[in-house]
């Protein structure tokens, strides 16, 4: 029996401390999804709590056909979609380009990405990530911060792997282009 099986079984047997372990193991992942999908506001942390209450109530339905963390992340994503639908908030606004976005020139050595490593533009990058539409910044975060695969992100967000890859590429290219604009604008 794996650690996951054992943990789930303990929770199903009524061990609340086991559930606390589950929360502590997965709260960062859940917060990444909720905080990226929803706009800034006090209801984001409340929604994270709701996610874990749903996990608690539905754990008996988990069949181990995916990683426990992936299942929890899927619930988090569903909760976000419900919340956004209730508030009538968009998922794909302000991308600044669609499928027919022209292929940019290959990056040059001036690259604004270079200054990312220099520290002072980390806040700039953070701001540009925040400006991305919810779906895009969620994918960027799950891939680069949580180190999930295209397949895992696709399972969580119920999208084909190719779509995840396409969105990720577009988001990174958009970040690069926006940083380039910022960088050139700040040059004397």
């Amino acid at each position, binding site marked *: 029996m794996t650690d996951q099986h054992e943990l789930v079984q303990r929770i199903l047997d009524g061990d609340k401390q086991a559930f606390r372990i589950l929360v502590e193991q997965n709260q960062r992942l859940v917060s990444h999804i909720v905080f990226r999908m929803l706009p800034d506001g006090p209801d984001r942390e409340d929604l994270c709590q709701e996610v874990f209450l749903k996990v608690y109530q539905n754990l008996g339905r988990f069949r181990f056909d995916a990683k426990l963390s992936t299942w929890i992340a899927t619930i988090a994503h569903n909760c976000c979609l419900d919340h956004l639908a209730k508030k009538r908030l968009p998922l794909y606004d302000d991308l600044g380009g669609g499928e027919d976005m022209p292929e940019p020139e290959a990056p040059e050595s001036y*690259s604004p990405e270079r200054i990312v490593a220099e520290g002072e533009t980390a806040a700039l990058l953070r701001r540009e990530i925040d400006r991305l539409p919810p779906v895009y910044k969620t994918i960027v975060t799950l891939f680069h911060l949580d180190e999930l695969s295209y397949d895992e992100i696709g399972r969580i967000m119920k999208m084909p792997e190719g779509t995840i890859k396409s969105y990720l590429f577009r988001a*990174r290219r958009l970040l690069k282009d926006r940083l380039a604009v910022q960088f050139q604008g700040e040059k004397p």
Partner: protein
Amino acid sequence: MTDQHLRDEQVQAFLDGTAVDSPAIEAHLASCPRCRAAVEGYRRLYAGLATASEPAALSVDFADRVMARLPEPGGFRAQLRRPLAGEGIFAFAAFAALVAAAIFFIKPSLWHDLFQGLFKSSGSTNQQVAKTAAGVLESLKISPELFTAVILTIIAIGLIDWIVTRRRTHHTAVHLA
């Protein structure tokens, strides 16, 4: 490949480790400073994303808050057994009891007829049970009509509870699918 610069998506796929033509890309990079710079630029962007993509953190007592909101001791099975707890079970019970009581006071004969009918319908066993039950109720000074009303109220609450449980379970299963 060697004559053309890498496209943006090739650079990203190469760094993601998903490029199908990695050996050809590597060969091209060995002879193309411009594309090497492109790869290096994205590599630095990736490094920035690994830290800058961290959103705000949860409260330090987040887990405590979740634990405080857990509904019942005994895990999820207890939850399933008490699907209406906190969601109007008492309102259902009060409403059902009110209806039963109203009928009891307005038309007692209805309950009396119903009670009699339940046990006189067939068989000697039922008649024996009816006699025993009537004796017990008489000793407790509870009228058969009131007893019948209480039983029917409990059955009504149980039925409503069962229906709501099934509907909620189905909704949750569909939602999580």
